[in-house]
């Protein structure tokens, strides 16, 4: 049977099921195939806090959302157009974000009494009018997968674990995806188990063919490839990009990378990724806690490595004292904070931007250090590189902020050529030449002296030091001067960084200012507003401390300033303090990224009022 083919500019799909249903894997495969077919895209995995919650429960639902398109994609999509729900709980949890007239594909087999009860449905939503506004496709996925594998005589568990490939196959068909990359992937992934390879490929094809054959679907869709800049691409998550960025910086600086880390959601994957890169000379050290993690990284920096420590908010709260020590000893160090919902343990698997104040102010004493934030998954690569650049050039700890959304979300990364990446010149002091441990160069950085170098023996420590000599000094004047020297050294970095990115005109009615992962949602909403002729621009601040010099001027060139943040207004507070500029806040602390539409309506509201 021939079906209609409709061409879409973009589509957002959410795969949802039990933690054990393999939804992350299914979503990732769909993503990778779409990427390879040239779509731009953004993804949003959404894990439950439980490792493997009991099947069928609401809190055990695991989701993976992917937004693909033939134009630039900024966000994983405000709502989704297609919901694949492997059980009633997945339907229940996700239905409210399905867009008007959206497509629902359900595994009908799972809509039994027990599961309906778990999901809190008294009557099956497939039977009443819950879903009348949507296009519902009830598919007996479990049953059909079973049929497809019948002659293989596999254990029931194995059959059950293949059903996500059936679902994936069906969605592949629906959106005219190429199955080959996934088939290759299955072959590689399960290469030690020929039976599984066979079962999964069969299920995938069965799902695809179901789309071809059945009458249920009237139309299928196509999404043309996006006009991304020429080049090689791969789909990349923020955490992987971060790990690669850090290693790249170490290589370009000619340093060994030492990672001192302690596992914590959502930062652990950076530790995992870097642990694999031993052939890059990466020494990863799983410390006993976050204090030991940062302390060991500082020790490694003292010894001449690039010391890195990765964590999330609670870990940063523990590292404060040691970070202050790095400020005092003026050693390079990058502290990566993958922010999550706070305060305290908060919402560990959810995203938030609430650690900005802590990054800037969260240590005792005057302990200034540069703070940088990544804005998209692939930007984590660049932000990591930039953080390392500043750390080694200025002999300073740097805090690099990302968040749960960037960490696990993904997008196509235009793979750079390693040669095109600038070198980070690091020179260790090799001979005295009149220099002392706290001598200053043209940017007020002190020399980096590697233990093992003859005649440069010296001691550093957390007590105030005399400038130049670095000896302990209780002298009041010296203390005053050193406090201000450390501050001005960092503040002068503002001359050595890219101006903050302005999208749109340099003056206007409204400036929407953001930082970090709200980048995409803000950009999309500002783009939309501008396309309607509104005088709105977007200022994205990547360097939070010190800020680029252009921020002051840009802020003052707009009638109003709107600051959307996933916190209660931390950047807004800082802008007010720095620039005495009034701000309008838009704050959402839901553990979820902003939807572009939310910002769009705020823009309208502000412009109206």
């Amino acid at each position: 049977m021939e079906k209609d083919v409709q061409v879409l500019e973009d589509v957002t799909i959410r795969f949802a099921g039990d933690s054990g249903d393999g939804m992350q894997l299914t979503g990732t495969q769909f993503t990778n195939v779409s990427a390879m077919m040239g779509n731009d895209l953004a993804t949003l995995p959404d894990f439950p806090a439980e490792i493997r919650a009991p099947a069928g429960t609401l809190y055990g639902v695991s989701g993976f959302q992917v937004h693909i398109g033939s134009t630039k994609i900024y966000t994983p999509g405000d709502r989704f157009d297609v919901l694949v729900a492997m059980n009633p709980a997945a339907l229940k949890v996700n239905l409210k974000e399905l867009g008007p007239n959206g497509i629902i594909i359900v595994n009908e087999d799972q809509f039994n009494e027990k599961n309906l009860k778990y999901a809190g449905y008294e009557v099956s939503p497939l039977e009443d009018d819950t879903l009348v506004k949507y296009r519902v496709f009830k598919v007996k996925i479990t049953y059909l997968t079973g049929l497809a594998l019948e002659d293989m005589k596999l254990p029931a568990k194995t059959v059950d674990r293949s059903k996500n490939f059936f679902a994936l196959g069906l969605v592949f068909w629906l959106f005219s995806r190429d199955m080959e990359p996934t088939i290759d992937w299955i072959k590689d992934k399960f290469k030690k188990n020929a039976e599984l390879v066979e079962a999964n490929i069969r299920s995938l094809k069965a799902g695809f063919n179901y789309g071809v054959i059945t009458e249920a679907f009237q139309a299928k869709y196509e999404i043309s490839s996006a006009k991304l800049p020429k080049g090689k691409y791969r789909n990349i998550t923020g955490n992987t990009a971060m790990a690669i960025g850090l290693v790249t910086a170490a290589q370009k600086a000619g340093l060994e990378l030492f990672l001192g880390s302690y596992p914590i959601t959502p930062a652990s994957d950076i530790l995992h990724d870097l642990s694999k890169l031993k052939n890059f000379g990466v020494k990863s050290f799983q410390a006993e806690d976050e204090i030991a993690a940062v302390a060991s990284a500082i020790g490694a920096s003292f010894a001449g490595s690039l010391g890195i420590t990765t964590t999330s908010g609670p870990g940063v709260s523990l590292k404060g004292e040691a970070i202050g020590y790095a400020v005092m000893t003026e050693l390079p160090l990058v502290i990566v904070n993958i922010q999550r919902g706070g305060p305290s343990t908060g919402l560990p698997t959810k995203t938030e931007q609430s650690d900005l104040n802590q990054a800037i102010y969260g240590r005792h004493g005057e302990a200034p250090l540069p703070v940088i934030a990544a804005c998209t998954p692939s930007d984590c690569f660049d932000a990591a590189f930039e953080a390392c650049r500043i750390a080694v050039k200025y002999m300073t700890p740097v805090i690099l902020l990302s968040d749960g959304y960037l960490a696990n979300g993904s997008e196509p990364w235009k793979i750079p050529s390693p040669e095109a990446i600038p070198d980070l010149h690091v020179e260790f002091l090799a001979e005295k030449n009149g220099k002392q441990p706290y001598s200053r160069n043209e940017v007020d950085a002190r020399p980096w002296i590697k233990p093992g170098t003859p005649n440069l023996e010296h001691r550093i420590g957390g007590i105030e030091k005399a400038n130049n000599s670095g000896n302990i000094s209780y002298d009041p004047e010296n203390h005053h001067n050193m406090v201000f020297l450390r501050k001005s050294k960092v503040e002068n970095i503002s001359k050595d960084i890219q101006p903050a990115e302005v999208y749109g005109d340099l003056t206007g009615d409204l400036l929407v200012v953001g930082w970090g992962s709200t980048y995409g949602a803000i950009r999309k909403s500002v783009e939309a507003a501008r396309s309607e002729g509104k005088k709105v621009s977007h200022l994205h601040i990547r360097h939070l401390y010190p800020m680029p010099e252009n921020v002051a001027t840009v802020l003052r060139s707009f009638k109003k300033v709107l600051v959307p943040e996933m916190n209660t207004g931390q950047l807004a507070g800082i802008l007010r303090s720095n620039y005495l500029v009034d701000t309008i806040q838009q704050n959402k602390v839901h553990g979820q990224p902003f939807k572009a539409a939310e910002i769009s309506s705020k823009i309208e509201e502000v412009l109206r009022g």
Partner: protein
Amino acid sequence: MSEVATKNEPVKLTAKDFASDQDVRWCPGCGDYAILAAVQRTLPELGIPREKFVFISGIGCSSRFPYYMNTYGMHTIHGRATAFASGVKAANPDLSVWIVTGDGDGLSIGGNHFIHIIRRNFDVNIIMFNNEIYGLTKGQYSPTSEVGKVTKSSPFGSIDTPFKPTSVALGAEGGFVAVSIDRDTKHLQEMIRRSHAHKGTSFLEVYQNCVIFNDGAFSALTEKESKPDNVLYLEHGKPLVFGSENQKGIVLDGFTPKVVSLNSGNYSVNDLMVHDEKLKDPTWATILSRMNRNPEFPHPIGVYRDVPRPTYESGLVNQLEAAKAKKGEGNLEKLFNEGDVWENN
């Protein structure tokens, strides 16, 4: 570390070469001076170029130590010296890393890093100055202060059972555990030498007199009259004999040590426990570490245990080398292009 020496020019340094230009600022009479002198005197013998030494400390009177050593040094933050040292040693296994800590720094706030560095077995040397008090903060009880001790923070006497630092180290898989006394210079130097010689984390507890806040805490072990009855010098392969005329010894009754008189005619030297540092099981060392719980017993001084096992940094370096051998030196081009890559034209 001995390879280091052979790799380099032979060095002929003296104690003076290890004294920095900073004024030593401990209280006059503090036991720390003696320990500093012992270290400065011992290091030149180790045949390591001066620039390869790194002294790392936390916070406390004792932790001022690195400032007085003309080597590389880090005076870090309270309790974390062992954690900083782990990074230093991992980053550059070629350095000779020495950790100086106090009973408060190392066992109170720093207890966790202490037990973890020991189990991981970095090849570093820990010297803990145990004065059974917080010196720098002016006299509060520490985790090694005895029950009932009256201090500023325990005006009615401490109610905390103290740690035996050596027991803690042994419970944490300590491969080298030794004890010495500030006043016993020669012994102390020998223990420093032995600490260095051990591959892996060495833990040396030094009883140290704080003249200001806990004066005389160890006088029973240092004063001429009382010392013979209270100090038991351990020597590998030698029976446990002590007393002014070597008239006393230690035998074992089941697991329980007993003090016996060699004059009574009931026991001869041949009945005594013979010290063995090399026992694989730490049981004997554990018995030693708890011996002085009872006032009748002497304090065992010397090396309780010296049993090497692979060091952390060697494991780390092996993995790096194996990875390089297997996958080749890391290549960014390859790393960037891992996984599914496509071309947009």
